């Protein structure tokens, strides 16, 4: 994690939330943050701050400013779009307040700034992806299908990062779920987000999840003290069911699509 890579991430975020705004307003914000990032890296390095600390500081500044970014965008865009983005950030902030509250009440929850940053980025990213998909969706079935698929993906990442699905927390076998998500993403790109192709992509994702469970059982992961056969099958079964439900919804969305008369 270098400061330059995090600065690039911030720059991408700025380009994202300034999209479709009037060019002078967007250009000014992009250039101003660009100068700020450059100044911060140069200043901190000149004062002997480690690269890791600079990177974390930049990431923290981005995350702490997310709500203000969304609000600022709202002031410069149409009320409908602004409200949606604002709601996503508020929803993410509400969800993140739960572990924060838990930390105040119990010692068994101990999130660091990095955990909050990652979870915040995940929630906002998923929310914005849903917003874009929902805006372009032809019907309700498609919107629900996208919601179910994204929720399943978010849950998969979250459970993996916080507890792990196979074996104990941090078991390398959990990395196989990265492959599950890659199957879904590649499938969606090949399908160009068309409902019929998305149904196939989600079925492939469900199949990949089932394959991971089978590999885990063949590798004897059910012999680990905290993951029995039923736990592995149960947890993976939930994700398989969610991905199949999404696939069926996409299929339904495809059937509802009006046919184009080419004659």
């Amino acid at each position, binding site marked *: 994690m270098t400061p330059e890579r995090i600065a690039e991430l911030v720059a991408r975020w700025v380009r994202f939330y300034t999209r479709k705004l009037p060019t002078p307003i967007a250009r000014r914000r992009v250039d101003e943050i660009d*100068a*700020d990032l450059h100044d911060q890296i140069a200043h901190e390095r000149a004062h002997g701050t480690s690269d890791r600390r600079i990177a974390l500081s930049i990431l923290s*500044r981005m*995350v702490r400013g997310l709500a203000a970014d969304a609000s600022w965008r709202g002031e410069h865009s149409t009320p409908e779009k602004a409200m949606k983005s604002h709601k996503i950030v508020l929803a993410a902030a509400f969800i993140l307040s739960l572990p924060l509250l838990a930390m105040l009440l119990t010692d068994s929850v101990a999130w660091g700034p990095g955990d909050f940053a990652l979870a915040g980025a995940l929630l906002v990213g998923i929310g914005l992806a849903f917003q874009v998909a929902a805006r372009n969706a032809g019907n309700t079935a498609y919107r629900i299908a996208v919601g179910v698929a994204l929720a399943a993906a978010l849950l998969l990442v979250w459970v993996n990062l916080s507890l792990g699905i196979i074996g104990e927390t941090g078991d390398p076998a959990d990395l196989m779920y990265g492959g599950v998500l890659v199957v879904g993403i590649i499938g969606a790109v090949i399908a160009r987000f068309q409902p019929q192709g998305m149904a196939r992509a989600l079925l492939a994702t469900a199949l990949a999840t089932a394959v991971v469970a089978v590999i885990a059982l063949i590798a004897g992961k059910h012999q680990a003290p905290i993951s029995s056969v039923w736990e592995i099958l149960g947890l993976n079964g939930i994700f398989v069911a969610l991905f199949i439900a999404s696939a069926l919804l996409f299929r339904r969305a495809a059937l509802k699509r009006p046919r184009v008369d080419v004659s």
Partner: protein
Amino acid sequence: MPRRKPGTLLPLETEILGLALSMLRSGHATFHGFGLAQSMREQTGSRSLTGHGTLYKALSRLEEFGLLSSRWEDAPTAEGRPRRRLYELTAHGADVAERALADTAEQATAPSRRPAPKLA
């Protein structure tokens, strides 16, 4: 984030105006985003810098209120780095900052609930 009452400033905006006034008095009429965030960190003794969104939104609001003005730094001055947006207190901004600082000082001597600084 504190809710804004119409015609008043948020604490962060008051802090920015106060710093801008201090810088003006010490002969630095202009300031830029990161420099301001750094000064605020030093002044408050905080470990972290103000979030990007929070800082630039506040600057943008102060400019809309006519309390700050801004312009891009000249290209030769930038010497190869990205050009900075330079901010400056307007005459109205200096007045409001003076009043805000006076209010803050008064509040420090007589701790009671006082209204947020007004713009006009």
